[in-house]
């Protein structure tokens, strides 16, 4: 890496080398049976240069291709955008625990047992179900060095466990599932199994909802599948800078329900989205986004922050390309109402556990429209069964402006969202009935 930096510095004014190497081992179950064991080794080097004030960029998986990498980066710098930032010089990073050596030591046999136990629990509840499950462990190292003397290193371990079950009766298909991830080994499958069993219980009967405005409870998984993506885009500093964010010029204004608090948090110990610094070497921080319904801040990387005359929030992410602002983990503060209290408050309404296709609408405006892949009808304060052929249409901003109650049941959905259930007074429902 040092050699790449040295070669780049001969041609360009500034340079930064980013290297990531990872190894992942996973066991995968198909149709309730162990089917695949995978191990994936990856390594890549990315070089960002600033030449005549412009940014150039190239990557390779070949550590020996040093000069070619430098040449490619310099070639692109001719056309690159003007750099408005400086690479961070040597700094201290917050100590955030994201590595546990025990993850790498988990034997494959233990991973197989974990998957088998999970499938057995679900099958003992519903014998006809067909499960696909996976258990994986990974170890990744990141190193960043730049021409201003900046240097960052960290190692992260990830353990994950997930299952998707499908139950088919004639042409009726029911899909259930959940997953859990951590930087520490997961030793039991109970948490995931409980959620799946709950889904199967609620979905035992079928029910239909009328096509009209209905009160809706989004479960944590429902919130994640329907409402979070538009917010991640709207709070992205780049969207704001372009003027395309509907909340971009509303800093400090009450845009959401006063009960709503949201932040981006890469500093929580042993969470896979956590890290001591972002992919540019900016220290990680917790960034408040919604404070009591008011827009508090947006997410930035170095370049976007410089263009917007603000500071990077440590959200520079490389998704295989140049760093760009990106959410790490969105956390919505829990409320005090239990899920059961929300349901028992509804005369006629809907619980949404999984919405399909929500992200295909006009994400920028917050409009969404999706098929309720897994959702339940509520009648007289009770869940009476699963709904089918039901589509909901709404707008995230209208929906989050007036929230009846926020759940006390906050939990992680995947690695990048932690949310409670949200109870909204009305949502437009269309159905075959």
């Amino acid at each position, binding site marked *: 890496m040092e050699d790449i930096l040295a070669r780049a510095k001969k041609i360009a004014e500034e340079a930064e080398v980013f290297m990531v190497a990872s190894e992942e081992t996973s066991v995968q179950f*198909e*149709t309730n*049976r162990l*089917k*695949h*064991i*995978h*191990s*994936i*080794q*990856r*390594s*890549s080097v990315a070089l960002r240069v600033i030449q005549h004030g412009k940014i*150039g*960029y*190239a*990557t390779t*998986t*070949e550590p020996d*291709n040093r000069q*070619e990498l430098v040449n*490619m*980066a310099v*070639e*692109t710098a*001719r*056309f690159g*955008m003007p750099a408005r930032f400086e690479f961070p010089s040597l700094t201290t990073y917050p100590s955030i625990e994201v590595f546990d050596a025990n993850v790498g030591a988990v034997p*494959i*046999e233990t991973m*197989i047992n974990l998957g088998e136990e999970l499938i057995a629990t679900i099958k003992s509840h519903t014998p*006809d179900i*067909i499960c696909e499950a996976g258990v994986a462990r990974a170890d990744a190292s990141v190193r960043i060095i730049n021409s201003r003397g900046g240097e960052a290193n960290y190692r992260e371990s990830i353990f994950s466990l997930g299952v998707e079950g*499908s139950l*088919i009766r*004639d*042409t009726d*298909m029911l*899909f259930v599932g959940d997953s859990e991830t951590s930087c520490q080994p997961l030793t039991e499958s109970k948490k995931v199994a409980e959620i799946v069993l709950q889904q199967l219980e609620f979905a035992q009967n079928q029910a239909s909802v009328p096509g009209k405005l209905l009160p809706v409870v989004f479960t944590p998984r429902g919130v994640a599948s329907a409402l979070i993506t538009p917010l991640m885009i709207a709070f992205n500093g780049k969207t704001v800078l*372009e*003027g*395309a964010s*509907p909340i971009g010029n509303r800093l400090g204004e009450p845009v959401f329900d006063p009960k709503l608090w949201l932040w981006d948090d890469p500093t929580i110990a042993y969470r896979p989205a956590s890290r001591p610094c972002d992919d540019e070497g900016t220290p990680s921080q917790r960034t408040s986004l919604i404070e009591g319904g008011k827009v508090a801040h947006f997410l930035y990387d170095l370049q976007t922050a410089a263009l917007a005359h603000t500071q990077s929030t440590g959200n520079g992410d490389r998704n295989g390309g*140049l760093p*760009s602002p990106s959410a790490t983990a969105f956390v919505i503060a829990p409320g005090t109402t239990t899920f059961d209290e929300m349901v028992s408050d509804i005369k006629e309404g809907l619980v949404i556990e999984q919405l*399909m*296709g929500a992200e*295909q*609408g*006009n994400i*920028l*405006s917050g409009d969404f*429209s*999706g*098929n309720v892949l897994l959702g339940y009808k509520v009648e007289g304060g009770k869940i009476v069964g699963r709904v089918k*052929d039901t*589509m909901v*249409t709404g707008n995230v901003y209208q929906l989050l402006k007036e929230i009846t109650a926020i759940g006390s049941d906050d939990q992680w959905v995947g690695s990048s969202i932690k949310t409670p259930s949200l109870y909204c007074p009305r949502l437009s429902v*269309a159905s*075959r009935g």
Partner: protein
Amino acid sequence: MPFIEAIGQQLAEMLKKYSADYIEAHLEESQTSHIAYRGRELDSIGRATATGGNIRAMVKGAWGFVSFNDLNELANKVELAVKQAQLAGREQSQLAPVTPVVDAVLTETDRNPVAIPLAKKKQLLDEYNDVIWQTPKLQTSIAGYGDSYKKVIFLNSSGSYIEQDRMDIALRLAAVATEGNEVQQAVMSLGSRGDFTEVQGLHHQVEKMAQRSVELLSAPQVKGKEYTVVLDPVLAGVFAHEAFGHLSESDFVYENDRLREVMTLGKQFGGKLLNIIDDPTMPRLRGSYKYDDEGVPAKKTYLIREGKLVGRLHSRETAAKMGEKPTGNARAINYRFPPIVRMSNTYIEPDSASFEDIISDIKEGVYARNWYGGTTSMEMFTFSAGEAYMIRNGKIAELLRPVVLTGNVFTTLMNIDAIGNDLEMNQGGGCGKGGQVPLPVSNGSPHIRIRHCLVGGK
């Protein structure tokens, strides 16, 4: 770049030494370049090279898979893949027999799009961006161009050794218009199998796209209910791919008895007029290839013929387990993934109706064009149109906000009651499955009419 050819020869010898029911290897070297604009500002420009490979071994019905960037110590990697398969294997291996093939399918490298000077690619995007920005009320735009050249060597323990290369170009443009609190966007997505001229000269289409984003600001939202819906070739192609195509991928079906019943060959899925085909042998489309990633020769497969289910897409394993012939549809997006059953070029065969025939007797309906995207969950599908109009009294009427169509595949296929004569193949976007996205595919159709289709709205 290291010579993957030399490594391939070494590996061919090595694979013979291990005791597994089957072993295969993929070696790959690739070059890519990309340019992206957000608004008037260049957002990203970059180049990349990658080299990697994988070993896949089957023992007693289970697979071990090892992928790597580091091409050293390959024997250890073969050993690990075999060991993993042994650990997981508890049944009997089944793979449909395929005659070993030794072949090299290489295009002239002077067509490599990555080798075209960056200046020329940037100039093209600059021109399109200028066209977009001539539109008033425009808030921002997105313009992205990406290309790739890759060479893949496939070899297996039965003696197959196939070298193939492929080139790909993808172009995506979006215009975002705002007025007050309203934000609307229009998008355009296309691609080619490495032919740069196919993404040139689209200035007029780009202009129309930008204008549409502005027109959408004042367009009404459709009332959510059932309509007679007419799909344009692009959206109907997405429908064929999403709603039906994924169901004919046998890896969903082969070990799932219930689903096998649903997908019994010979079952009536649609009217006599309906024919759906997957065909990787069509020339020069993004989903075209000569051999799949298991070394199986590509072939044209009828999925639905005259409304009846007559075929499905297979890997060697799914074909063996279902007692059918392999179709050459096992594809991997790159060396980091094992091949899985995928579509190639999927389309609805044209019938005889003209566009006027199709809309003339619709009193109130929706004409949906273009696509934002689509997903499917077996029987349920959702797909969204980038452009939509009301149909009133047999005529195209007012522009609508983008619509989302949803439904049950089985009922919807039955409800197709008119198919046009104007087949077009769409080269935009890419398909996602099992974390492998975007795989280059194409899909197509003539205009089609669907009765009783649920449209989401207010």
